[in-house]
């Protein structure tokens, strides 16, 4: 009986924590349907006026498109670099291996603000001020650690005999990699790519330093809008973003199996 009550309270605590985390999102969506001018909860009445207002403010849609392109590019580049780096670190024993591994993971430990300032100075000297490319470099830098970690976990799970079996059967190292290894680490790569996409789409600290008047990401656009206006338009933007991300996750879940990729990475 004690055990049952224990799991009951555990479940209650879990639900409370989930409620606490989700409540702000629910509030944002609720306020977006308000008919009032004020960014205030609870919403008054019901209207779609802020969604119409959104259509009249194309800068948000443009920013969302920029953010989407950036997130896709970032997730592709980070996955390619992160996967090759993880394989090198896992497979080979070379001088400076540990140093490279720690350097790759260091963006996790350094404040993004410091990283962004350093990168701004560096890229300006290299002749790359605010641009899509400099945004991409910054985003890849902060998402790379996740890809490296997730692919490494995937590599550690592989039964080395599977690759040996392929080699004995006549596959060259190249064939072993493309016919076997890459499929075995695919869940880790996919989880890494998804992580990179979401973290890039969401990033503001690094983006703030590299956006220009013509190239603004959605989080920066929202942040700047909030500086001079406090109407519920922002909640409509947020609701659309929430809807798009949920839709994306559902599609991925149905096609590739998102939770499967993550649990495969975690449990082995």
């Amino acid at each position, binding site marked *: 009986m004690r055990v049952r009550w224990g799991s009951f309270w555990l479940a209650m605590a879990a639900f409370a924590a989930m409620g606490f985390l989700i409540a702000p999102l629910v509030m944002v969506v609720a306020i977006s349907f308000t008919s009032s001018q004020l960014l205030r909860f609870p919403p008054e009445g019901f209207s779609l006026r802020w969604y119409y207002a959104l259509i009249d403010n194309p800068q948000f849609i443009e920013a969302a498109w920029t953010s989407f392109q950036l997130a896709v590019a970032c997730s592709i580049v980070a996955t390619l670099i992160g996967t090759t780096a993880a394989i090198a670190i896992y497979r080979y024993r070379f001088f400076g291996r540990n140093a490279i591994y720690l350097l790759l993971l260091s963006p996790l430990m350094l404040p993004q603000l410091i990283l962004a300032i350093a990168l701004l100075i560096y890229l300006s000297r290299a002749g790359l001020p605010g641009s899509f490319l400099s945004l991409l470099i910054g985003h890849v830098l902060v998402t790379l650690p996740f890809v490296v970690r997730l692919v490494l976990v995937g590599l550690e799970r592989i039964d080395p005999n*599977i690759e*040996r079996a392929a080699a*004995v*059967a006549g*596959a060259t190292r190249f064939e072993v990699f493309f016919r076997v290894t890459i*499929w075995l680490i695919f869940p880790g790569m996919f989880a890494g790519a998804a992580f990179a996409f979401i973290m890039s789409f969401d990033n503001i600290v690094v983006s703030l330093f590299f956006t220009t008047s013509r190239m603004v990401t959605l989080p920066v656009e929202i942040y700047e809008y909030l500086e001079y206006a406090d109407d519920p338009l922002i909640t409509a933007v947020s609701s659309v973003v929430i809807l798009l991300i949920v839709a994306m996750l559902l599609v991925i879940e149905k096609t590739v199996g998102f939770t499967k990729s993550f649990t495969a990475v975690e449990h082995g």
Partner: protein
Amino acid sequence: MTTHPAIELAGLTKRFGDVVAVDSIGLEVGVGELVSLLGPSGCGKTTTLNMVAGFLDPDAGDIRLHGQSVADRPPHKRNSGMVFQSYALFPHMSVFENVAFGLRVRRLPKAEIERSVHEALAMVRLDGLHDRSTQQLSGGQRQRVSLARALVYQPDVLLLDEPFSNLDAKLRVAMRAELVEIQRRAQVTALFVTHDQEEAMHISDRIVVMNAGRIEQIGSPTDVYRRPESVFVADFLGEANLVEGRIAAATAETATVETADGLQFRAETTKPWSNGDACWLMVRPEHLVVCADTDPAPANRMHGTVKSHAFLGSAHIVQVEAAGRDWSLKLSDSEWTPVAPGDDVAIGWNAPDCVVLNA
């Protein structure tokens, strides 16, 4: 024209740091032969197999397959097949694709791949399961897929690394007979690594008993069991009653062994012994008998007390204390005359049934 052995190991050595894992071993395996490397864990048997497969580079010595040195060749250029304890199937491929793998990387025409894969699956009695995912198969089926995958491209040698250790006891025994049949039919030379002496005896043409990186003895299952050449081999293969002593008298065919407490046992031997040589006497438990006083006395006979009795179904295991030590007897159920702990019995064995070993 000379015919070369299928596998030839010459002075093969592997060190890991200060540890000599494989210490200059030599072995020849004839074409079509099934040879087991048998020994406890850490004896170097798996290291030897990994060197033959090409996963480890030898520190010294040579590996020749059909007369060709392969020591410098990567695994994919040795035309060998391998079966692993962990099955090591490709989880992202169907049964068909798993078996077809070796043919695909050999760039064979589609029709030939199709035909060969179906033949190989039929050989391991998995025809009809080619569409399955490997996750849907039982352990025994997985190991058969892995066997088909290793044989489909007609390798020069088949390497097996404890392939049945993950299977449950009954299936393991059934797979032994099946493996021998498949290996005969495929006419492939096989090198089989195991720590299970019964498995090695069941399937092998010859057994290579290894210990601490060296070969202790090479011989047919009957040879290594009946005529072990060292205490290690006697002890590792099956049960053994071992008594330490010295040679008290010796002729060309017989030897008398005297123990420290003055007991004398007679044995037949083919080795020349001199008086005073330190030695061990070995008798298998199944060669010891309980004898009534009226029986014609076996060459070696003692009185003792029964300490324990256990019935294993096909045999009875009896521990008898005699001459200051415990003797283990394995008596078949059909010849069983009941004894109970505490009984006084006479036990004995015939001179040809025991072996004298170097100390």
